[in-house]
């Protein structure tokens, strides 16, 4: 276990290093992405540009610039090029919003996927199964920003049932918090419900024909108990894995589309805005932040996986 954790930490550092270099390189190879122009405001004189380059260190070699930026990332002194705010403060401000979105949506999609998966597996081959399978496929085929925009226009703007964007902190008013997040949660969940329920359904059908299920049935255990205790439990392992990975991805900037459509101003939307302005520091910080979550959730999932299935060794 200790060796496993140590190896994961080493690989986490390697991944973060590689990702930061790649992100930095992407923005440094653009010919007209010179950040001095972004800092100088409108119609700068060549003298002003030179001064800015000297002050911000853009005249230094690229490796020195990279090292300086990484130092700023870890000391929390990273400054945005476009509006000169502290990047880590902005991320800290957006994080509760992103986490609220991810956590609520992840619970919703897990719950409905289990319900839908169980129901379609029990009714396999019947009309209800086929109908719901088509619905799940439609869910997988919809771009989240499209269905999100339609929901917010028709249910929020036109009908006025739900608030039209915005965010209320949980600590301020839990009911308003949930009320403002219902539409984003739903939009984000649809894709995952479709995908997970189909995975679960095929796992359930596989497990149902296992020997231990036949034994349980022979012992006279009720169908309900068999389904919940013996079949569902065994089929949940891959779902737990997927769930952990997707949750990590959503927290780490994967909800960039949902946040933009519903104007939640979380970390993802901050990233989208920064990319739009070619503002390197926030993009670099958020990409590393996202990769950090993805790798951490990967590790957690592996540990949970080994705990759920003793046949798997962490090595």
């Amino acid at each position: 276990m200790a060796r496993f954790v140590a190896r994961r930490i080493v690989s986490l550092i390697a991944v973060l290093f590689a990702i930061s270099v790649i992100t930095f390189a992407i923005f440094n190879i653009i010919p007209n992405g010179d950040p001095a122009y972004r800092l100088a405001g409108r119609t700068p004189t060549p003298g002003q540009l030179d001064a800015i380059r000297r002050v911000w260190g853009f005249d230094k070699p690229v490796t020195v610039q990279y090292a300086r930026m990484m130092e700023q990332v870890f000391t929390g002194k990273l400054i945005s090029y476009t509006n000169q705010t502290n990047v880590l403060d902005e991320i800290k401000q957006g994080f509760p919003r992103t986490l609220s979105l991810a956590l609520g949506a992840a619970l919703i999609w897990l719950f409905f996927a289990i319900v839908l998966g169980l129901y379609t597996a029990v009714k396999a081959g019947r009309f209800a199964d086929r109908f719901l399978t088509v619905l799940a496929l439609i869910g997988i085929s919809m771009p989240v920003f499209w269905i999100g925009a339609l929901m917010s226009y028709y249910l929020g703007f036109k009908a006025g049932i739900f608030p039209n964007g915005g965010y209320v902190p949980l600590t301020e008013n839990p009911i308003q918090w949930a009320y403002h997040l219902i539409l984003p949660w739903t939009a984000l969940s649809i894709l995952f419900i479709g995908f997970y329920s189909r995975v679960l359904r095929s796992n359930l059908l596989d497990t149902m024909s296992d020997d231990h299920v036949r034994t349980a049935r022979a012992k006279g255990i009720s169908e309900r108990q068999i389904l919940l205790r013996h079949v569902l439990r065994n089929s949940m392992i891959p779902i737990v894995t997927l769930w952990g990975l997707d949750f990590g991805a959503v927290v780490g900037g994967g909800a960039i589309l949902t946040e933009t459509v519903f104007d939640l101003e979380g970390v993802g939307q901050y990233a989208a805005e920064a990319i739009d302005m070619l503002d390197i520091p926030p993009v670099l910080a958020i990409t590393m932040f996202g990769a950090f979550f993805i790798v951490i959730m990967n590790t957690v999932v592996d540990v949970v996986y080994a705990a759920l299935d003793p046949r798997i060794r962490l090595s």
Partner: protein
Amino acid sequence: MAIEPAPAELSVEQLVASERSEGDAPVAGIAPSKLALRRLRRNRTALVFGALFVLIVVMCLAAPLYADHVAHTDAYKNHLTDSIEIGGKQTNVVAPDGVPIGPTWKGRFFLGADESGRDIAVRLLYGGRTSLLIGAGAALLTMLLSILAGTLAGFFGGWTDNVISRIMDMIWSFPVLLLGVALGTALALGGLQLGPVTINGDSLIIPLMIIGVVYVPYIGRPLRGQVLALREKEFVEAARAQGLGPVRIMFSEILPNLSSTIVVFFPLIIANAILLEASLSFLGAGVQPPTPSWGTMIGAGVDKIATGPHQAIVPGAMLVLTVLALNVFGDGVRDAFDPRAKVKAK
């Protein structure tokens, strides 16, 4: 929802025939791919959706015909100051307050106009060409790279495997959308200079390449696993014993055995690539306006949704229909090639 499966029962004649062939004549061997095709032919749902996809492709290919002979405009021409006759009354294409007309259900502006007075139906068809081209091209690129990565890593093992697997792991742990958007924005602004080749910032090659690379780990990893297993098989050993070189073994022994996996993944990857193109374009990092694509059209429509929701609904619905057709067809293909994954309980 009237999606009924094809009747699976055999007719009496077929039953008799199969019974007889078991007894007297020697049973003819059938290639697995033929069996799979036979199973696919029996899956009517998959076939209907496959046909729907083909229909959409044909419609998009016929875009110039529609533009010239039915709509009498092209994908870029704006009709801001024009008016057309609806129900005997002259109506502005774009009203003075900026609201474009909705679907007329006639030749001109069949699906309405957008905020610049461009014909949405025409743009939808031309945009479909862009989206389908990027989707299919990216899927092809993903396949080529995955086959290359998976085969090399699985076949040679050792440090080759290590390097390739680590690269795939890294793409995997990158926040995919962030990476794609960052790359897309950066390249759209400056273009790309690869030795003698210059790619313009608004070239379709850029989103195509980004999408093609992003999905490589998803296919490369399973392929690598398969190659690892195949490498130990007797027929590969036999080929090696005959003195065949590694390249020859990879092409004539390993690759044919990967074909069913490749066939199964292909439609699903196209579907995902089309979706990713839409997401990138929505964030301004994919196809660059004014080139129409379903993604750019949805993006523009979502911005202008208050002036006329049809601008967002039409391209989105088309995209969903296309991706759905590919997903259902792809599902059928998977069931046909891997019958074990199909519904067992009846």
